[in-house]
């Protein structure tokens, strides 16, 4: 009998883990709640730093998926049970299978920007999120605000829902800084006359070529980076967003009108991940992200033998980090199954 592994979640982490497990001769059931695979990347127009289109990235990940990966789509996992030396996983629609190991690849959910009430998302029409902007790019819509005007000034607010005790999210979402740089450049390419401002508290350009892109944003595209968090936004009679922010390097408060305000929403643990982890008896889920058995040495293992993590369900990751983590998870599973 070939070994059988159930991978929960068919975003980049689940797809890559499944493909690599299958190449090692393991039968895989990849469970996905939506109709199609791909996760958040499906809605992402281009990935930093080289502006690789999201669809191209997904096509490459899906290409050559071995036959011994069976996708169980439109199935939300509602139950997991450890029985002797195997696991029983069941879905909302009555689907149920047994497996020798489980991989959590449940990913993340985007922070609901309405929780930062003072920024006005859901209230002021020209306040949008980074995900909304990406969708505008992806669908080829011209960059106009909700009043049909080309914005003369556009603001990007970093760390929306990240590193923010007020919304109970202490973690850094890692990808938003470079995404803001990428999106700011894309906006400048579409609207060269527009002024673009990024309001940040730190710029965490930790990845390869990130720093170069940040430099290019300043030198080539004249994007203004202002160190300061937005305190509030409001709407004027023309639908412009009036921003209040402090430039902490100059030590001066600023009031700026923008035709469009983009909130860089961070990653939060998926609401369902914690309840599934609870069902299994995983205790290391401090903030909703699953904590690995050891963050340095056993980053894909959990405290329960046979239960593994891949991708952003254990903390925010970029797509490239997610793919590397997924390959690593596949090897960890193979080692556990003594293949």
């Amino acid at each position, binding site marked *: 009998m070939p070994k059988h592994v159930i991978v929960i979640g068919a975003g980049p982490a689940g797809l890559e883990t499944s493909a690599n497990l299958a190449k090692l001769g393991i039968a895989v059931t990849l469970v996905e709640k939506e109709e199609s695979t791909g996760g958040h990347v499906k809605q992402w127009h281009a990935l930093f730093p080289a502006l690789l289109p999201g669809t191209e990235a997904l096509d490459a990940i899906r290409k050559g998926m071995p036959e011994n990966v069976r996708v169980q789509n439109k199935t939300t996992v509602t139950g997991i049970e450890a029985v002797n030396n195997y696991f029983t996983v069941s879905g909302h629609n009555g689907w149920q299978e047994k497996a020798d190991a489980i991989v959590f690849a449940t990913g993340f959910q985007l922070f609901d920007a*309405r929780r930062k*009430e*003072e920024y006005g998302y*859901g*209230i*002021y*029409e020209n306040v949008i999120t980074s995900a909304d902007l990406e969708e505008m790019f992806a669908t080829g819509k011209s960059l106009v605000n909700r009043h049909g005007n080309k914005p003369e000034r556009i603001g990007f607010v970093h760390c929306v829902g990240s590193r923010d005790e007020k919304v109970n999210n202490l973690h850094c979402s890692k990808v938003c800084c470079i995404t803001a740089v990428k999106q700011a450049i894309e906006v400048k390419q579409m609207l060269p006359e527009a002024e673009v401002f990024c309001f940040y508290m730190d710029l965490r350009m930790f990845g390869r070529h990130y720093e170069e892109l940040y430099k290019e944003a300043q030198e080539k595209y004249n994007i203004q980076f202002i160190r300061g968090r937005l305190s*509030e936004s*409001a*709407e*004027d*009679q023309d639908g412009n967003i*009036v921003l209040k922010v402090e430039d902490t390097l100059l030590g001066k408060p600023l009031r700026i009108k923008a035709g469009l305000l983009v909130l860089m929403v961070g990653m939060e643990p998926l609401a369902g991940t914690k309840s599934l982890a609870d069902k299994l008896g995983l205790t290391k889920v401090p903030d909703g992200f699953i904590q690995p058995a050891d963050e340095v040495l056993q980053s894909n293992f959990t405290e329960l033998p046979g239960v593994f993590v891949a991708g952003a369900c254990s903390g925010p990751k970029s797509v490239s980090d997610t793919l590397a983590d997924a390959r690593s998870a596949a090897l960890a599973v193979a080692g556990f199954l003594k293949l």
Partner: protein
Amino acid sequence: MKLEGKRLIWQEYQKEIADDHYFYARSCIRQTFFPGAEAVFVKILKEELGKDIHDEKHHTSCTGIGYHSDVVPFDTTMTVVARQFALMTEAGYENYAASCVTSFGLYTEILDTWHHFPETEAKIREFLFKATGREFNKPKNLAHASDIVYKFRHQIAGKAKYKLVDKDTGEPLKVVEHIGCHYSKMFPHKGIGGAEYPYVLSGMIEAWGGEVIDYPERRHCCGFGFRQYLVQANRGFSLSCSKKKFDSMEPYEPDMIITNCPGCPMFLDRWQYALSEMEGKTYGKGKNGIPVFTYEEVAGLIMGYDPWEIGLQVHQVPAEPLLEKIGIPYDPDRKFKGKNGEDLGMPESPSYLKFYADK
């Protein structure tokens, strides 16, 4: 502006407000600034709504202004507030209704402090007992008086003679609502509508027929800010704050401003005079400025109370143009008559901001 977005937030920030039997603590400054406001509140609750309200004569200041100005230590403030609670307990009440927004914020802060630090509450109980021999129960329900008017806003609308509507055009009046900073900015869940988009006054304005204006400096301080005003050298900040708000709301052509705090109507009203003398500019249509009211005064007006009985003659910005717009009758000759008809004397006319209707 997507109103449905605000409505979602308003649903999240609702709170329990007692239905009856209130222990009422007045503000230290409101009876000087807007002398009819608290009397109107008591009258509406007792006579119009048939509620039981205990108007306590022996309570003191809560020390809020001194506390926020760093001249009264927190232990002292808590002990003074404990005495207010003792008076409530002795009077046989459990529902505390604060007239002042700063008092309400301070009571909320103290109850929250005691919740998290029971040893502090025990210490304050000991201080109070040693000083006065009094003991107390904590309020079962704490509300700001505007919460209570909000709760009964529809009943008030049902009994009202007038609406916040232009009698000639039938259009709703454009109303600026200004919320005192200490109402919900410190404890958003203790205020109706939260901190960013408070609903307590907007709900009244909607129920009474007006239209709320959301202008860019809506959240900004009125200009009181305690030390901005209390320290004389800082008064330029106070005036600047008010000016910033007037400049921001002016393009929306507001008919009136409604507030729920002791200081806000004072500063938004009187600084219009100061700004007119300094810059020769008056806000609003004509030369009469934008009239500023407390929510109790507005409730009294729509109920048909005589404008001079509820103290509108002490406003710097005259109320008459608004009264005429709504169709509320008034006797101009009685404006500066005292309660028994005595002549209070005509104030000196400012250079620009007319204190009578400029026709």
